[in-house]
């Protein structure tokens, strides 16, 4: 009964999305005709769109909640539950299992789409009404396509008869607290960008592109971007500790699929600021909004179609792939067609000098776009190469070499940009303002090069620039009244500082990590970095749905440090049969000791992988700071917007 109710909710939501699109299209069309604009029917049409959007969002949410209920109750008569769950699974993974599969994750996708649309309908007050209605129409058009995808080719509520006694279980790699949070966070980010897309489409339809539009769009972009940042950071940490490979970024197609929308959204965030503050970059901002959501959808397509080999590819199914591809063609192609037809009618905004805040933001946009292009080409190149009969995969050597140097230039621009004035600045004065950061960069460069000796150029520059960027990031607060500094300035400072912190972690991990792979005898100490690690012994342990061999390692720093213990495991799951390694990680202020237990050999020795990773934690700490900066900025914008609106009403 629950499954049928869920399916019904999904059908109703789809019907409402169709209605929403129809009402919005008629309303916008009539309001553009002077003869019809004032008619009461136009008014009625426009008024109906908002409630329909809200109910559509609620129904999608109901469908998602019902699916979660099915997973929690382990209702094996539902095909999706039988294929992806097991009654012996801990409750948290039953819930997370609802989106740890193709159909469930697509349902989560439309749920977030619907809820985001409802949020716009309820909360957005700053936009001209025809533009808002056109925006909700665009949002409904996207939702309609994905409802159709779910209902016609990926029904999550399909029954299975006869019902199996128990389910197949969830991939043990996904049975981790990280999975409970990583996909929903990332999806909120991915799909949140759809709002920017719909805003852009709405603005192109009504030809209403200007500072007011940008100010209305900015909080939505910012919110989606915060979630994307958190999702990527969490995903990176999950891969780091769960896969047991010691790395935090693998340039896997799906990691790239999450990075590309982030790059586009970061560019959009900065160009929308230029549009809001200085009324410049109108066409470019529209373009970026379209590109950012296109990248989200391409990400979905790459993950779901199976055309690229990846750990994230659930369903290798050309029918589904074709369906998503058709949706992609309609939305991306349609939006870019609209862009080409309409952008000629968008007036050019204000112009500015090259040496100015706008100039730096344009440079930031171009560099982010270049990195985006590099990642896109690297991700898709295997498909192109296959066309020429060559089999290859593109990995870290390409991405590091191609994107690394561009990213370092971007860091330099990032350091200087916030210290420039809007519209026009003198190069001399600007250089005077960045003297301290440049000096910091130089000193760190020399000190690191002299003391460590022989580290690679890229991490060396990374360390030096991260120090310079950290100094430059806090410079906007220099000699300012800290109490009267607006919250969004703090947001920018913290977000930029977060990038510096994260970069320092990446560079330090690349330059200073020490790794050792040993066949360890019990009692024999192994040296890694400053630590002595001894295998004390192994013993079996039992978990809720797994059994494991657990090693006890005692570690000691230097010769006089206190002893502490690490317990890496090799876990065996029976549903489905899989062995995973659970790494054991000791976090210290200056880095992490990372240990993985491998296979035993015939002589009673155990394979151990040990890493000492100095300051690696800064990578994720930086990511969290970036998201925090975004959140402060968002709060700052929202409270200021409310205050200004209040004042405007008082004057009116």
């Amino acid at each position, binding site marked *: 009964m629950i499954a049928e109710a869920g399916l019904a909710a999904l059908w109703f939501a789809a019907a409402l999305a169709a209605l929403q699109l129809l009402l919005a299209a008629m309303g916008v069309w009539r309001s553009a005709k002077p003869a019809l604009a004032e008619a009461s029917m136009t008014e009625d049409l426009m008024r109906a769109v908002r409630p329909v959007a809200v109910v559509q969002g609620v129904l999608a949410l109901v469908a998602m909640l019902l699916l979660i209920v099915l997973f929690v109750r382990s209702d094996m008569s539902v095909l999706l539950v039988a294929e992806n769950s097991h009654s012996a699974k801990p409750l948290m993974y039953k819930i997370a299992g609802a989106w740890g599969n193709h159909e469930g994750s697509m349902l989560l996708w439309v749920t977030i789409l619907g809820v985001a649309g409802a949020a716009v309908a309820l909360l957005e007050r700053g936009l001209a009404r025809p533009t808002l209605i056109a925006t909700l129409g665009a949002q409904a058009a996207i939702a309609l396509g994905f409802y159709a995808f779910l209902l016609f080719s990926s029904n999550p509520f399909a029954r299975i008869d006869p019902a199996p006694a128990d389910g197949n279980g969830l991939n043990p790699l996904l049975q981790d607290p990280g999975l409970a949070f990583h996909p929903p966070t990332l999806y909120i980010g991915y799909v949140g960008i759809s709002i920017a897309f719909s805003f852009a489409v709405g603005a192109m339809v009504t030809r209403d592109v200007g500072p007011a539009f940008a100010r209305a769009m900015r909080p939505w972009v910012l919110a989606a971007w915060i979630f994307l940042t958190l999702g990527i950071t969490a995903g990176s940490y999950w891969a780091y500790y769960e896969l047991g490979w010691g790395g935090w970024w693998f340039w896997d197609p799906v990691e790239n699929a999450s990075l590309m929308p982030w790059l586009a959204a970061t560019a959009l965030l900065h160009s929308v600021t230029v549009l809001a503050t200085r009324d410049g970059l109108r*066409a470019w901002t529209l373009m970026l909004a379209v590109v950012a959501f296109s990248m989200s959808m391409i990400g979905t397509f790459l993950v779901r179609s199976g055309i690229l080999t990846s750990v994230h590819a659930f369903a290798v199914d050309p029918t589904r792939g074709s369906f998503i591809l058709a949706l992609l063609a309609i939305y991306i192609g349609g939006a*870019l067609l609209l*862009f080409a037809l309409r*952008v*000629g009618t968008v007036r050019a905004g204000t112009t500015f000098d090259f040496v100015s805040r706008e100039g730096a933001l344009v440079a930031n946009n171009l560099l982010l776009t270049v990195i985006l292009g590099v990642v896109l080409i690297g991700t898709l190149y295997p*498909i192109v190469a296959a066309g020429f009969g060559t*089999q290859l995969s593109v990995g870290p050597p390409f991405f590091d070499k191609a994107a690394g140097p561009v990213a370092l230039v971007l860091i330099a621009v990032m350091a200087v940009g916030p210290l420039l004035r809007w519209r026009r600045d003198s190069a001399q004065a600007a250089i005077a303002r960045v003297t301290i950061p440049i000096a910091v960069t130089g000193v760190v460069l020399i000190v690191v090069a002299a003391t460590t000796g022989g580290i690679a150029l890229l991490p060396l520059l990374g360390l030096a620039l991260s120090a310079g960027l950290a100094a430059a990031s806090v410079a906007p607060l220099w000699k300012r009244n800290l109490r009267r500094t607006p919250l969004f300035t703090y947001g920018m400072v913290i977000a930029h500082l977060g990038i510096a912190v994260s970069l320092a972690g990446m560079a330090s991990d690349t330059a200073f990590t020490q790794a050792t792979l040993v066949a360890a005898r019990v009692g024999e100490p192994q040296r890694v970095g400053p630590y002595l690690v001894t295998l004390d012994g192994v013993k079996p342990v039992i978990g809720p749905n797994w059994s494991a061999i657990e090693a006890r390692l005692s570690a000691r720093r230097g010769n006089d440090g206190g002893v502490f213990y690490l317990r890496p495991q090799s876990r065996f799951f029976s549903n489905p049969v899989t062995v995973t390694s659970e790494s054991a990680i000791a976090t210290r202020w200056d880095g992490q000791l990372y240990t993985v237990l491998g296979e035993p050999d015939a002589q009673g020795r155990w394979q151990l992988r040990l890493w000492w990773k100095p300051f690696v934690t800064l990578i994720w700490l930086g990511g969290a700071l970036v998201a925090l900066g975004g959140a402060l900025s968002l709060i700052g914008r929202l409270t200021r917007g409310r205050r200004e609106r209040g004042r405007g009403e008082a004057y009116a």
Partner: protein
Amino acid sequence: MSARLIWIPFAVALGLLALAAWGLYQPADRTVRSALVGQTLPAFDLPPIVPSKPGLATAQFATGKPRLLNIFASWCIPCVAEAPQLLRLKQAGVVIDAVAIRDTPAAIADFLARNGDPYAAIGDDKTSSLQLALGSSGVPETFVIDGRGRIVQQHVGDIREDEVPGLIALVRGLK
């Protein structure tokens, strides 16, 4: 922005979509091809492991007659499963040389007595050195070597019954 430039994003998107569509309908080829195909065998000289058969050296190849080089071990279960197929290949006139990986004379003699002996020569590779030089990651693996000592094919895993006719045809077609 000029009127033509405006269409560039649309054109790029169409190109990307065409690429994706093409990638989707192309039957995905997930076979991993060996990078050693087309290369000459590395230089090696392995001693015999059983007294009745010669060892194996590079000089035994490149004699104008194509051969198979089978990498096996007595401790390997898929090698037992593969043995009947190798015997059929031998009956069809295919010469098969072998490399025994990390093995002992007694165990090999026992293996040949139990599972039949399709081999012309068996080299003793106690340290997996030839296996590593050939880029082979496990047992059994079979390399098809042409008359000039070049690797034509690397077959990973045991040879199945349905693969035997293809291999015979491949070897007969080589010079």
